[in-house]
């Protein structure tokens, strides 16, 4: 039975999220595996240092051996000894459009992943379960591609300037008005790169004397932007509203650390869908807290725009809330729109301020015109303004695919994290050898998956992350599920004990949370 939360009627639909606990035996065996690899890592490092083995990784020069060592920390150790062994699952070169099926160049390594050579063969029609192609707009034929080709012949590819100088095209203005209408906000601004949108605009919004409350599992771009701003950062537990409320209360009551003055601004940083966990933010509760404690909300909808909500307008529509409650709505065009770039939407005064003071507007090259046209066409398609119902059908197809895929995987017995409605599906692998084995076995069966290990996830919780797409037909999903079932039996990945752990909604007290000291 799912633990359904109805916090005073804030949720209009059931919120089913589950993170099954790691089985104890699996955790112990994972540590055993890492222990063995660490011992062999020390052995190999010893052999490299005493020149018994050829050293193929980066080292300091002979003259620098007496300086502070550069490659002795854990990350470099992990890189040399663990990551190198399974490196062939990443950076695989593809040579076609990353749609539902993709072509990949075959490569082999003769010296255990230190160097790769291409055999020249191209593996065709690999079912693509790794690309962020939620609505299937990564196409090489169709209305988006034709419009982009026309604009390419009209405007060219390069802009050769920043937004503030000579790079503000009429296409950008058209795009921003369209995005603002799509989101239901007053005004919006588009940037060339999604990562840069976060990292360059958060410093423009907050500064010293402000407080940032950021989720534990926020993306690197949000963390970088928060650190660059110079504000005080406090972390609350992932999606845990009691933890957030405690931090807000403390902030209001105690104020700034030394002087006890009130904070100039309190900004809450959350994401719509967290891509490593597949969880959806508890937006109704965050908005209720934000209103109660008079703080601001920055919502990063990188993965949820286009993917959630009955008409694809993101997590705000999914929960049935008003976009005016979110102060800064940020998102990217990379995932659901088949292009590249990011946007920020909000009140007109905010966006006008960002046009002047954002680093990305002042220093970064503006978006390329064909990319802008791709976004314009795809947004119009989703909204239904191009006269067809393709957009709506795609959003519904994605929702159906998500529910079907998740249900089937859970029935098979895998541990799947996250919310029932999120198109990002993490499947837990845990053991380091299984990361490499899963990637290789799935490629042998013509399915491309993304496997993730440390440092993107905690060291024992490595996973395979499937990204569903509206372009996946049911036959493709069935094929993929059959292969995943086979590989799951082969590698013994079906850890689930079918015991649903209820969500942590117990009342929050002093004994369960350690406060970080400033």
């Amino acid at each position, binding site marked *: 039975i799912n633990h359904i939360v109805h916090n005073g009627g804030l949720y209009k639909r059931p919120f089913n999220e589950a993170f099954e606990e790691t089985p104890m035996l699996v955790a112990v065996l994972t540590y055993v595996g890492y222990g*063995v690899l660490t011992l*062999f890592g020390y052995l190999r490092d010893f052999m490299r240092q005493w020149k018994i083995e050829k050293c193929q990784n980066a080292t300091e020069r002979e003259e620098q051996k007496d300086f502070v060592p550069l490659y002795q920390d854990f990350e470099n150790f992990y890189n040399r000894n663990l990551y190198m062994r399974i490196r062939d699952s990443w950076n695989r070169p593809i040579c076609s459009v990353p749609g539902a099926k993709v072509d990949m160049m075959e490569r082999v390594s003769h010296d255990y992943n230190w160097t790769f050579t291409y055999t020249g063969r191209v593996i065709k029609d690999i079912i693509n379960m790794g690309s962020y192609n939620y609505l299937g707009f990564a196409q090489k034929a169709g209305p988006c591609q034709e419009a982009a080709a026309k604009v390419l012949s009209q405007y060219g590819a390069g802009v050769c300037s920043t937004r503030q100088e000579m790079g503000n095209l009429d296409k950008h203005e058209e795009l921003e008005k369209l995005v603002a209408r799509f989101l239901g906000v007053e005004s919006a601004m588009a940037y060339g790169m999604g990562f840069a949108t976060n990292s360059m605009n958060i410093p423009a919004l907050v500064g010293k004397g402000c407080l940032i409350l950021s989720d534990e599992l926020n993306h690197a771009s949000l963390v970088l932007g928060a650190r660059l701003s110079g504000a005080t950062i406090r972390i609350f537990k992932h999606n845990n509203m009691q933890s957030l409320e405690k931090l807000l209360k403390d902030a209001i009551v105690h104020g700034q650390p030394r002087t006890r003055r009130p904070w100039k601004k309190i900004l809450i940083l959350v994401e719509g869908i967290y891509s490593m966990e597949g969880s959806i933010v508890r937006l109704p509760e965050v908005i209720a807290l934000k209103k109660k404690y008079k703080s601001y909300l920055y919502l990063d909808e990188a993965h949820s725009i286009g993917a959630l909500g009955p008409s694809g307008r993101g997590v705000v529509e999914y929960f049935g809330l008003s976009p005016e409650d979110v102060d800064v709505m940020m998102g990217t065009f990379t995932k659901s729109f088949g292009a590249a770039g990011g946007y920020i939407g909000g009140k007109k005064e905010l966006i006008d301020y960002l046009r002047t003071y954002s680093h990305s507007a002042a220093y970064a090259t503006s978006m390329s015109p064909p990319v802008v046209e791709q976004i314009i066409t795809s947004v119009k398609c989703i909204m239904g303004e191009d006269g067809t119902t393709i957009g709506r059908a795609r959003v519904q197809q994605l929702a159906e695919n998500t529910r079907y895929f998740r249900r089937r995987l859970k029935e098979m017995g895998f541990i799947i994290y996250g919310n029932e409605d999120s198109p990002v599906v993490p499947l837990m692998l845990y053991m*380091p*050898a299984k990361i490499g084995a899963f990637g290789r076995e799935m490629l042998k069966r013509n399915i491309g998956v993304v496997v993730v290990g440390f440092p993107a996830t905690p060291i024992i919780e490595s996973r395979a992350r499937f990204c569903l797409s509206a372009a996946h037909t049911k036959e493709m999903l069935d094929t993929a599920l059959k292969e995943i079932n086979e590989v799951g039996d*082969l590698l013994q990945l079906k850890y689930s004990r079918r015991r649903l752990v209820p969500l942590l909604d117990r009342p929050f007290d002093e004994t369960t949370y350690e406060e970080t000291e400033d």
Partner: protein
Amino acid sequence: MDVKRSPQGYLYWLFCQFELITCSYLMEPWEKVLFYSFNLAIAGLLLYTAYVCLVFHLSSAFQLLWGFLGNPRENALSVVK
């Protein structure tokens, strides 16, 4: 790495699981040789110790147990002394 119906296939599958859990699946051949020989040496020592000492330990434990269960009066006298 296919059929696990036949006993040979099942043993091979078990060996693959061992390889995956101890990460010897990822090791180069000479590392595998080193690792397996170390494991076999430890396992051999354990078996030898079990063979030599287990019989003696089991029989002495059995005697002690028999002493406790067999004669309750003798046991009480020995405790008083």
